[in-house]
């Protein structure tokens, strides 16, 4: 078993704001992140797949193909976007880094080759804050 990681990045605006709560309650829970006019981040995305290398190519999978999947299914939808407004797979969800990582997982899994398994989505919201999701 070997683990292969591809690093991609995207920039986006978001806010942490529960529409079922009052503005005051949102500000009490989410602080500066509840700013109604949005704020934004440079997100760094680490996608790790696992499996056994193919005996002929020596590849677990062609990392260019992995990059293409991540770009087509995730980066295209998120880069330079407003996460709350413009991303179909985040509609109705709170745009936390936790939920974003789990949604990214779901976007990638259906497109991986047979015998290649998604192991981890690691998503940095800032250089000092990141989440990991292992599909559990």
């Amino acid at each position, binding site marked *: 078993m070997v683990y292969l990681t591809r690093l991609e990045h995207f920039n*986006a605006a978001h806010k942490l704001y529960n529409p079922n709560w009052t503005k005051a309650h949102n500000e009490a829970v989410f602080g500066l992140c509840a700013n109604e006019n949005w704020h934004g981040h440079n997100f760094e995305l680490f996608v790790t797949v696992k499996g056994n290398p193919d005996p002929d190519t020596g590849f677990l999978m062609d990392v260019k193909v992995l990059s293409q999947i991540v770009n087509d299914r995730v980066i295209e939808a998120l880069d330079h976007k407003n996460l709350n*407004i413009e991303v179909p797979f985040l509609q109705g969800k709170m745009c936390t880094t936790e939920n974003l990582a789990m949604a990214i997982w779901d976007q990638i899994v259906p497109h991986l080759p047979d015998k290649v398994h998604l192991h981890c989505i690691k998503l940095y919201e800032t250089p000092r804050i990141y989440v990991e999701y292992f599909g559990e």
Partner: protein
Amino acid sequence: MGQEKVAVFRKAHFNAAHRLHVDSWDEQHNNEVFGKCNNPHFHGHNYELIVKVTGPVDPVTGFVVDLKLLNDVIQAEIIQRFDHKNLNLDTQEFKNLIPTAENIAIVIYQILRQKLDLALELQIRLYETERNFVEFPVA
């Protein structure tokens, strides 16, 4: 000792949303020039700020500038103003100025210049992403 100039640096960071857009241009021209950065729903960045202060070392304190005080000024004047804000909508400085990294660096310089001893040289380096950064003034 005493007349040697030394450069000291303080790092800070803020997160903000923005949009690159010229009101007097039509949508097509804005999109041609600014591409994805013109998104009307905004996008955002983690800005990393490096403030460089150059001057003689004080013979008594051994400091060019007290970095704790420099940090206090950066926090009070820059971070409070821009962190978790929409630069286009929430700040006076960019009501009529396009919030490119270049312009943000110039604005930060102008704000901090007023708060620092004029005997000290000031330079701003601002990272919009890890790969895009600007400096002002040009050395």
